[in-house]
């Protein structure tokens, strides 16, 4: 590619042609403040913090959208530019509640940081009008507080560009603008799938997860309750980040120890029911293949994805596997199988999940998810909420010993662990389906074709003469691409499709650390596969606890009890919600 030479703050630099001035400056180690920029995703020039002086230009262009050009002379911090930035920030603060001390993002807010960096000590527009948009806490997972919004548009770009959902966008105009669903509908009535990708990128506290730590504290404090916790495959490689560990560091044992210290009666592993999901789902697949069922079968363990297909591709719902997600299988079993084994009244059991995901909060609240006779999963905490609890309790994860999960719902295989990464469910399912179908051991356990961050992946696995064709997509925009093809009849030769709502899979879920980027995702995926590698058992159907579960309780995969407890159905939702009374 052709390169361009320019000068930034008296430093000559040569960069590729399409580079922006902002990136060229960063390559020189000059950091220009910005509140809206997200590389490749949100380059809209909205906040105007990144303005620079360019010789010969009439005004100060925004460096995030300004392409470099030959001979350009840029100054990034002249008195004029600094004064203008400061005043722009003052303007933002004049339209902001400035309730930092009680804000969910206190201490890790980009607006706070910018005010500090630029040395804003006064807001001269303070006594003027502010917009008044009420808080929207209609959503079961995601809460909007438009008063805090600084209109960076990151959420809009991510929701449309990464997820292809377009649940939120600018409504009204000028000073009254609000970033909201069309017609300013409450989020709960919109097409929002609760994925939380928007809140991972929000620079301030204008979108955040519904914090449910209070009900967990209350349950833990109630001696009448038997509180059990399950931890998702993807939380064990991200929890450490809040305690200063590099992304992707597995902290499974320390996490188990921390949960015990918090006072949970039993610490179980969602990986266990991930193995169970695999057994049910691969049997379902083989069944469909044998009996002429609807193919390709599509995974259903990602609740954001499930809501997406319910809104946008209702006619494709029969493709969706009826197997519940591992979280919901766990809840259903905890209040039946485990309750019986432990001799506890299911009414006294409180099932808490620790999830990388905001959409799991919505999933747990679905009316279909009460097959134990109670609400199967009572409270869903995101990774961030668990961090909050640990910090509040004064527990330093780094100083804890490694402990083991409780039996029996804490026993798992590497196949359950890789659920946390894109392609993981597919790989786990193939490991089992192959052996169930052929009765022979799988020659190669690692199925590398389905791993990695490419948006859509595919593989063909030879089941002893029968080629099984599979597809994997992560990020709903890619899912949409596949669904369009499926609708057009172009995927009829495929057997199985894995869809994960969030980019990278659950390790990049909306419940994970704020600011998750693709480098973080890559390192967490590495962490996940490291966990798998180190497991003694790596195939779900070899999980002894799962084998015992079938023997003692369920009977057989897809059996009557399975059907009642482990399978579900879906609902048709509108793709174009409108304002109703």
């Amino acid at each position, binding site marked *: 590619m052709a390169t361009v030479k320019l000068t930034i703050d008296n430093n000559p630099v040569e960069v590729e042609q399409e580079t922006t001035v902002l990136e060229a400056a960063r390559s020189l180690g000059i950091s220009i403040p910005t509140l809206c920029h997200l590389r490749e995703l949100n380059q809209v*020039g909205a906040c105007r913090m990144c303005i620079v002086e360019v010789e010969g230009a009439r005004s100060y262009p925004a460096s995030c959208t300004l392409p470099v050009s030959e001979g350009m002379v840029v100054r990034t911090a002249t008195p004029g530019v600094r004064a203008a930035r400061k005043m*722009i920030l003052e303007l933002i603060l004049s339209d902001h509640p400035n309730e930092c001390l009680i804000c969910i993002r206190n201490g890790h807010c980009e607006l706070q940081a910018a005010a500090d960096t630029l040395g804003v000590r006064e807001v001269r527009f303070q006594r003027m009008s502010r917009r008044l948009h009420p808080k929207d806490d209609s959503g079961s997972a995601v809460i909007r507080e438009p008063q805090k919004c600084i*209109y960076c548009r990151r959420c809009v770009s991510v929701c449309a560009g990464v997820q292809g959902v377009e649940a939120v966008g*600018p409504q009204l105009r000028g000073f009254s603008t609000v970033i909201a669903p069309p017609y300013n509908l409450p989020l709960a009535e919109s097409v929002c799938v609760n994925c939380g990708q928007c809140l991972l990128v929000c620079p301030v506290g204008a979108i955040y997860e519904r914090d449910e730590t209070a009900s967990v504290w209350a349950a833990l404090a109630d001696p009448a309750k038997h509180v059990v916790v399950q931890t998702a495959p993807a939380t064990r490689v991200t929890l450490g980040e809040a305690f200063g560990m590099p992304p992707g560091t597995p902290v499974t044992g320390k996490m188990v120890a921390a949960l015990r210290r918090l006072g949970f009666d039993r610490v179980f592993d969602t990986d266990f029911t991930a193995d169970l999901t695999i057994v049910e789902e691969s049997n379902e697949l083989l069944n469909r293949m044998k009996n002429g069922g609807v193919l390709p079968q599509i995974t259903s363990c990602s609740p954001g994805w499930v809501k997406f297909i319910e809104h946008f591709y209702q006619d494709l719902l029969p493709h969706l596997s009826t197997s519940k997600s591992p979280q919901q299988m766990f809840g259903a079993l905890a209040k039946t199988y485990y309750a019986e084994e432990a001799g506890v009244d299911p009414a006294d059991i409180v099932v808490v999940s620790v999830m990388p995901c905001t959409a799991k909060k919505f999933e747990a609240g679905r009316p279909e998810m009460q097959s134990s006779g109670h609400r199967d999963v009572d409270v869903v905490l995101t990774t961030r909420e668990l961090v909050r609890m640990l910090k509040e309790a004064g527990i330093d994860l780094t100083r804890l010993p490694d402990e083991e999960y409780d039996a029996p719902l804490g026993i798992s295989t590497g196949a359950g662990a890789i659920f946390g990464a894109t392609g993981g469910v597919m790989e786990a399912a193939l490991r089992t389906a192959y052996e169930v179908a052929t009765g022979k051991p799988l020659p190669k356990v690692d199925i590398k074709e389905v791993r990695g961050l490419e948006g859509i992946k595919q593989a063909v696995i030879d089941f002893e003469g029968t080629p099984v064709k599979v597809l994997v997509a992560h990020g709903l925009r890619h899912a949409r691409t596949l669904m369009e093809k499926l609708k057009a009849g172009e995927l009829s030769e495929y057997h199985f499709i894995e869809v994960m709502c969030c980019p990278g899979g659950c390790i990049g879920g909306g419940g994970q650390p704020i600011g998750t980027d693709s480098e973080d995702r890559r390192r967490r995926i590495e962490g996940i596969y490291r966990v798998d590698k180190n497991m003694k058992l790596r195939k779900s159907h070899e999980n002894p606890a799962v084998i015992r579960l079938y023997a003692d309780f369920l009977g057989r995969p897809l059996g009557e009890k399975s059907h009642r407890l482990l399978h579900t159905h879906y609902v048709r939702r509108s793709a174009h919600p409108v304002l109703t009374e």
Partner: protein
Amino acid sequence: MNTEELTKLRHTAREALRLREGQLPTDGFEFHVLVCGGTGCVSSGCKSVRNALVDEVTKRGLEQKVRVIETGCLGPCNLGPIVTVYPDGVFYHKVTADDAVFIVREHLEQGRVVQGLLYRSPETGQLLRTWPEIPFFRKQRRIVLRNCGLIDPLSIGEYIARDGYAALPRVLGGMTPEAVIEEVRKSGLRGRGGAGFPTGVKWDAARRAPGNPKYVVCNGDEGDPGAFMDRSVLEGDPHSVLEGMAICGYAVDAAKGYAYIRAEYPLAIENFQAAIDQARAGGLLGRNILDLGFDFDVEIRVGAGAFVCGEETALLNSIAGKRGEPRPRPPFPAQCGLFDKPTVINNVETWANIPPIITNGGDWYAAIGTEKSKGTKVFALAGKVINTGLVEVPLGTTLREVVCDIGGGVKDGKKLKAVQTGGPSGGAIPAEQIDTPIDYEALAALGSIMGSGGMIVVDEDTCMVDLARFFLEFVQDESCGKCTPCRIGTRRMYEILTRLSQGRAQKGDVDLLIELAHVIKNSALCGLGQTGPNPVLSTTANYRHEYDLHALEKKCPTGACPMRIKPAQARK
């Protein structure tokens, strides 16, 4: 139609129009009675005048003798409704329905000019019979408005009779695209939508830009309050715009054009659509135009957005079905425009200049105007001036000539205080600068802009704080809300101005206002924010004492501001 048939049609059409040049009628009529039907006149009752004329003509059995024609806007709005009777060209002004009946009986039946409806010269006191004698028209030079008010906009024949569709066959029949662009470049024509970018350069960039298909877009959003140049052209001479667009289509290799016209302009939409239909039917639009092997078609898009939808990138977003908000440039539309393809977007007035430039040559056009600002410009003269309406003058004409000679001076014998050009994006030019020749650079040097052609005359009774507040109220309301300086900053400016006007100013408010104005001007994303502070910057620069009076003494020198706090209270 092919070129020969077009020539033939032009011949017959010219014959039919000879009466309006004072020559012998050839179409059997003895009179052509033109009634001004622009939207300005529609509101002053020209529909009823037209109906009264038609009714009376029918009643008296004069249908064979008299043709009543509804035209677009002739310009002098404060004189409307206007009725002009040809072949003599007798100009009647402020005509009522009763007057119309009288004109039929007296003038058309008896051949007696109705003296009482003639315009009396304010200078000499004499009655003037024809419109070119009227001072309002004397210093004008009508290129863009060449047909407005003089032809039936719904008749392609009348357009053709007046050299319409003469440029298009010339271009298609014998000029290379490069030669067309060269002619436009030579003319020195600059965009009339506000920014004044050289049109030829823009076309050349679009021609060279990689990407296909390419598009041609007409910006008919005209959001500047009080401006109606574009509306008048679209209503009164729609074919001139259509022809300009087709010529550009050939020059840049585009086959599709869009005309974005605001929904508030129903008559413009109607007339423009009629023009499209006629041009298509006549083989002047569509496939294989004039049998010369060029395809080009135009579609109307009705815009129903804010002022900012007139900004080119916002407008293109809007045509593409997205929210009408601007995006950063570069890339410019010529490189990446409608549907991310190379696109030429020009203003209505710019388009209407193209056919005469091609017909008469770029050099002809370049001979009019100043060194850097060529040709003519249409202004919507308004405010405290005697004659209001549309005026077209050669660039380089002074503000004084427009305000005093054409406009007849300030109303009610008041003193001139300033002239605001460029609408809400422009600045107030103080009376001392009234001898400034109107061109892009001269106006910019005075802190204003040429803009799209709004020109508001401000008299001594106007408070400059109030004036700035009026424009800032508009700007903050029309902001799209995408970028911080404009979304919040223009609101803050408006709030400070409101405080000033209510006697509630706080210490340092005027300085804060000025500092803020500079920051917004320098940092906003699009032209709206970048020019929105101009009314404040120009008035604070030239009338700072008025601001200080409001701020410090809580007094409004003209009494225009509703000071809530009385000076006595303020002193405490």
